[in-house]
């Protein structure tokens, strides 16, 4: 399971590095993007299993990118987990509406993040297995 590919999208380089490194130490293959446009590029070349998507991005925001991915046949299966600093009521609903599969609020907890990510990957796999005839 630790061979899954994870794309981390965050415009803040420190956060990008922290999330990447925490998950990197768990053995995941990590891809990084600091905006939605470069994320799209990477996804086209190397489709990841899971994306940790910062919602507030310069240019195209994270939710817009999520809607695009979920509308696309080829990327629909990619798990998108929203990352946001605004723990406001309605943000989670907005994220779900845009098609996000999960929601993690910043500040990220380095001790629980790997477990949460593993959980999302596992449940996606289970669904896939169940989905097979």
């Amino acid at each position: 399971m630790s061979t899954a590919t994870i794309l981390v999208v965050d415009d803040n380089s420190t956060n990008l590095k922290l999330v990447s490194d925490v998950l990197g130490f768990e053995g995941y293959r990590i891809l990084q993007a600091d905006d939605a446009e470069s994320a799209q590029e990477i996804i086209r070349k190397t489709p990841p299993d899971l994306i940790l998507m910062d919602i507030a991005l310069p240019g195209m925001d994270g939710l817009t990118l999520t809607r695009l991915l979920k509308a696309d046949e080829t990327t629909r299966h990619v798990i998108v987990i929203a990352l946001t600093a605004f723990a406001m009521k309605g943000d989670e609903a907005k994220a779900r509406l845009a098609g996000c599969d999960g929601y993690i609020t910043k500040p990220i907890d380095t001790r629980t993040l790997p477990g949460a990510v593993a959980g999302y990957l596992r449940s996606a796999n289970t669904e896939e297995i169940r989905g097979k005839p």
Partner: protein
Amino acid sequence: MSRALTDVLLDETPDAVVVTAPDGKVSYWNDESERVFGYSSAEAVDQPLDTLIVPPGHQDLYLQFRREALEKGQCTFETTRRRKDGSLVHAVVTNKVIYDKEGRAEFIVTTQKDVTQLKVLRDAKLVESKFRDLLESTPDAIIMANETGRIVLANSQAEALFGYDRGELLGQLVELLLPSRYRGGHVAHRSGYFAQPRTRSMGAGLELYGLRKDETEFPVEISLSPLRTDEGTLVMSAIRDISEQKRAEQKFRGLLESAPDAMVIANHAGDIVLVNAQTEHLFGYPREELLGKKVEILVPERFRGVHPGHRNGFFNEPRARSMGEGLELHGLRRDGSEFPVEISLSPLETEEGTLVSSAIRDITDRRGIERTLQEKNAELERANQAKDRFLASMSHELRTPLNGIIGFAEFLSDGKPGSINDKQKEYLGDILNSGRHLLHLINDMLDLVKVQAGKVELSAERFSLREAIGEVCAGIRPIAETKRIAVKVEIAPGLDFVTLDQQRFKQILYNLLSNALKFTDDGGHVGVEAALHGKESLQLAVSDDGIGIRREDIGRLFTEFEQLETGTARRFGGTGLGLALTRSLVILHGGEIGVESEFGMGSTFRVTLPLIVTGEGA
């Protein structure tokens, strides 16, 4: 008979003897004439007789009797004559014509006997019999005088009013009853009155005074009416002492003048009856220019049309009220400038009927202050909003790098990237603690700003109070255990499911509990009680036996950054925002928070919350 005897006869005769030429010019004027009419011989000779002694209105009679004498040689009649000082006398007059040798009229010799007192007695006799009884029965003092200004009747009320004994006034000039400064003028007025006699009040608008026998004066009101009799016209004066009324008026005027506002009193027709000095000052008119004018003179042109209608409305239902409630009213100065006013009206019952009294206040200054205040308020509001925005964005900006600090410290401290020694682990722990404290502070501040800016909406859900309290207690258990503090929870039976914002409820309880633990010494006791409070509320009480709060400090307790002593913050840590935030959250739920405490003995915080809040918060 010697020449001397003729002179003696002419000089000593009790009659006034005057010789005139046929054209009426005086050629002889004896001593008695001077005594009766006041003109000396030198003054009279060569003057036309009528201009000297015939009062206005008697010219025709004078000419008629002269003609009659010229026709018949002699005629006698009774009439009124005027003295040099303007006063009148009653006289019996005989005109005798002296002819020359050719039988032409050469002179007219006029002898005149002053019968003023006889006339008085005659008039008195006439009116006594006719009017005495009637006039004694009226409450007013009545004085009747004849054309010569002599008193022919005074009722007992008049005698009492002026302080004279019975009969003393008969035959006296009415001027006796006036202060001497008015006497001269009065004689002329009196003659004028007899020329055009009609019922009216005397000296309208003037202040009249009577003079008592003892020389004291008093204010009076006099009405005059003519009385035509066979003996000629008499004038009847009804005199009323208005000392009391004057005193009352003076008191009223004093009141009026001492009022801080401009006072304008008007009658039903809108005529200004009375104004005070403040009115003169405020509107720039001298008093005389306002009295008798329509009040609309003080109203800007554009409101004048509707004003009389409003006035009628007031008189239809006269009661004290403010004018044009909620409208902006303006006054008009004499110079045409306008100013904002506030006017209160009240009815004024007087002998002349209901009047309206208006108290007018210039509110230019107040308007200015109000405007300034509004501007300042708006400015404050803007500044406050700017502060909120600043705090919100600052909180976010501060949190982002802090996430990095905490995240990497945690990551390192957990030894994920590689092993670290104990000292390094300790320092990383310090960094983590500091970072987490800072994060907590920022989070509380952001929360508080959001709540106070009304940006937090409650998300109500039905949950188990029992479970929620249990979860919060589990959260603080590590601290409680470290300080060996027993946390006792009591929930009233039957109280379980509530509909509140669960996250906010937990935040309220967590803040109160962590405060209780913080300010309770090791080994102390902390309790949580939840009970029904009325039918629709619950009360949550968090008590401790900690350091307590001084009475004088309780008021500041729920204010931002008010940890009580500077010392406590250092000793107990915390952000100083917890209670302010807690209170805001409680209020957001429509609840209340209070505290009872005894210094050194502990505190109990009580929160009342509704059992059910609806949807989006207050």
